[in-house]
């Protein structure tokens, strides 16, 4: 179990956890920071004050109820589809690689890539706006021609300092 200080591309601090289950099975977990209560309160207050101001001018209560519904729906969508709680990479020797993302609402989305489809795991660099970010990705073979690369699956949405640790641990 190794824990060091890492940050993602937006500067938020994340943590990396490595667990060895057996000689050929390893699990890496990257945990993102939780949803900040302060941000939620700020957004909600902003939306509701704005709605109240509109209500003050239009005297229509539908504005208030629609603001409430909008806030609730927006929050539900955010925690169910956008906010990632932790991501896991499970490497099983001679079977394959499993990527799993767990969202703040508890939803888990998993992909398993078999060993026969896997070509290699590499660190790739990309130019993103004003900076260069490094990301770990899996190269997948093309089913028709085993030499070429069909698709590239990026792992984790975070920055590279933990990529190096994962690559070293692999």
């Amino acid at each position: 179990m190794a824990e060091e200080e890492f940050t993602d591309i937006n500067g938020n601090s994340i943590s990396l956890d490595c667990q060895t289950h057996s000689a050929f099975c390893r699990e890496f977990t990257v945990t993102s920071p939780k949803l900040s209560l302060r941000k939620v309160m700020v957004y909600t207050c902003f939306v509701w004050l704005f709605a109240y101001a509109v209500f003050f001018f239009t005297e229509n209560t539908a504005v208030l109820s629609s603001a409430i519904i909008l806030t609730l729906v927006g929050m539900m969508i955010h925690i169910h589809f956008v906010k990632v709680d932790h991501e896991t990479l499970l490497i099983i020797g001679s079977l394959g690689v499993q990527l799993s993302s767990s969202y703040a609402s508890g939803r888990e989305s998993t992909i398993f890539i078999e060993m026969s489809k896997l070509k290699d795991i590499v660190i790739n660099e990309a130019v993103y706006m004003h900076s260069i970010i490094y990301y770990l990705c899996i190269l997948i073979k093309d089913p028709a021609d085993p030499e070429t690369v069909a698709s590239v699956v990026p792992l984790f949405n975070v920055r590279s300092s933990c990529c190096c640790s994962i690559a070293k641990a692999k």
Partner: protein
Amino acid sequence: MVLKIFFPQCCNTADSGLLVGHWIPGHNSAVVLAVIHYPFIPGQVKKYLSELQSQTQVDLTVLGSWSMPKEGKEGMDSFLKDLSTIFPQKCWLQLSREIGKRGFICQGDKIILIHYDQRKVMLSQLHPVQDVSQKSDIEPSELRLVFQTVAQSQPLFFLDKYDDGPLKLTHWQSEGREASIIAELLKQASVPVCIFLTWLLSLWHWFLLFISSKLSTCVQSGYRAVHFKTVFSPKKAATHMEFMRKANIFVSFLLDIALGLLLISWLYRENRISKLADTLVPVADRVAKELQELLEWLMGAPAGLKMNRALDQVLGRFFLYHIHLWSSYIHLMSPFIERILWYVGLSACLGLTFALSVLSDIVALLTFHIYCFYVYGARLYCLKIYGLSSLWRLFRGKKWNVLRQRVDSCSYDLDQLFIGTLLFTILLFLLPTTALYYLVFTLLRLVVVLFQGVIHLSVDFINSFHLFAIGLRICRPYRLAEGVKFKVLCQEPGTPLHLMMEINPLKCSSVLQCYRTPTYSCYPKDSWAALCKKLFVGELIYPWKQKTDKTD
């Protein structure tokens, strides 16, 4: 090399016995399908396995031994070792479990034990679907082979330890046999019913051939008849895709009927249909009046443009007479309309798509005069354009060579040139009037076509929406599998790695994409550029093309 053993969850608590399964070639893994309990006669075991091999096309062998010791029964170990000599294998597995411990003990190192739910894996279908019978170059992956092996070994699961047979097996059926007398009776009854319905359908199909294919109602009923042929054929569906298609056609038809009956109950309650019929004639009258006013506006100075008075009056009077004829026919029909509409409304019990097709046909009939005007205007305009282009060539001293399909120079006589130029001038100055009439009626026709297009699109949506696949994805998500997911089970020292394999269901968007029913979707026959060109030249346009149903 790591050895992978796929072990069914139902055999975790099975009594000691022999492991029966299949070695997956080339991947160093084995799938355990069942456990045969003591006492057994080795000769009978071998005979049973070879019988099943010919039935299932799966290479079933004895993989090893399974030992689950109970109190009072000792001394199995030496007995188990002797078994490996009776059933010769290059690799003999020896799995055992101790009371009070959760992990299995297995001989050798570098072993992964993957637990799977046998019933779910048997019923599941991995996507993208690859037919077993299809000879493809792509090597099936290990997981696909595992799924195929379990699915093909269904005859192995017919006998279990509660049957009075020579062998006592444990597999998923031992947890509780699932059967329903109603389902079995329905299955038995369905074959003669299907044969009878197929015969009825062949008669209906022969009858439909006589009716023209212009009415969308007939197209829809023909389409449904083709569908029923697929559903009611007495042959059982061979592949997964055929089964899904059959099931969906059936479910979609039931939904259609349900929606149609709902529509009928809404229409006939409070006698809404008579009210609808009463408003129909005034609406038709209103449309006729609006058209009359439009024509009178065109006959004057429309939008400030100056028309050729004589041609204007002729065309205007010609169309006005048509409208007069049309309204007198409508008035003639008006006492019968309520009755007719009442009976036609009952036809919605055949399905909502049928009702929508009937609505589309009614709209087409009511706007028949607009269609006629469009055809007259278009033909006139088309003739004018062709005449103008031909005379323009004459003006420049050229001619269209029909044989060579190109423009050639030609020397005309003086009188030919004189008459040609005269006609050209006449046609050119009459062009604005004809063009205006053509424009107005084309726009009206396009509005009607758009409305019919919307109705056809909704009919198409109801026809092609794969309700069965979505229902299956929601109620039985393990049937449609995108892949698998593994979970590491808790470790005990001295035991090999245990993993739990669960089925990862297909995403809803992939379900819709994969199982779209091909239909006679109305799509625009021409691209926008071709359509504009046709409109400019004056060719008659039929923008919605009915594509014949393509079966996969």
